[in-house]
């Protein structure tokens, strides 16, 4: 199974990538996805979305999902 991982804004610059595909042998939590794709400790206030909806770090990610990590939002 495969998921798509994305990084936005300052996090994209810190990670040095806007994301990548990740092969999973079994379903992972969001937290496990983070650890699988970066060597960084998660920054304070890091936010996460699964399939374009906010989720918490314990949420499970399934085949075909898109998981995005990003800093606090600053629009408006």
């Amino acid at each position: 199974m495969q998921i798509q991982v994305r990084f936005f804004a300052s996090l994209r610059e810190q990670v040095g990538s806007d994301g990548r595909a990740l092969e999973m042998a079994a379903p992972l939590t969001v937290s496990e996805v983070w650890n699988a794709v970066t060597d960084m400790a998660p920054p304070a206030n890091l936010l996460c979305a699964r399939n374009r909806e906010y989720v918490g770090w314990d949420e499970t990610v399934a085949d075909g999902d898109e998981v995005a990590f990003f800093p606090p939002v600053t629009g408006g």
Partner: protein
Amino acid sequence: MKIEIRPDPYDPWEELAAYQSASEALRPGSYGACASFVGSMRDVNEGDAVRSMFLEHYAGMTESQLEELACEAIAEHGLLDVLILHRVGEIHPDDPIVLVAAWSAHRKAAFDACRAMMEMLKSRATFWKKEELADGSRWVAQNTPG
């Protein structure tokens, strides 16, 4: 209801006038109140002069969030209609960034909803600002409290 992410500059007052006269939800004589908010770019932030700004968003997610918060506001406040526009891309001082407008029969609903939508947008919607200063660039860490 109209929700749009705009890559190019826009005139908020022209957009309001055009939307109000074209919307089928706004039969003339049906609405007594329109509360609107325009957020535009300042040339200073945290004491530093800002030359320009880049506004990034999460295409797909951001639009859904704006639609969702507009639908929530319509349902909760009994609005007749909503207009939300938001700039992305390269922005210069004085450029309008966000326009939120709420129409209702009476003023309370329009005022409450316009402000509630702005607060939801600022706290939830996936936009990020990067400022260009005289000596480099920086990401805005967080929004000013509402």
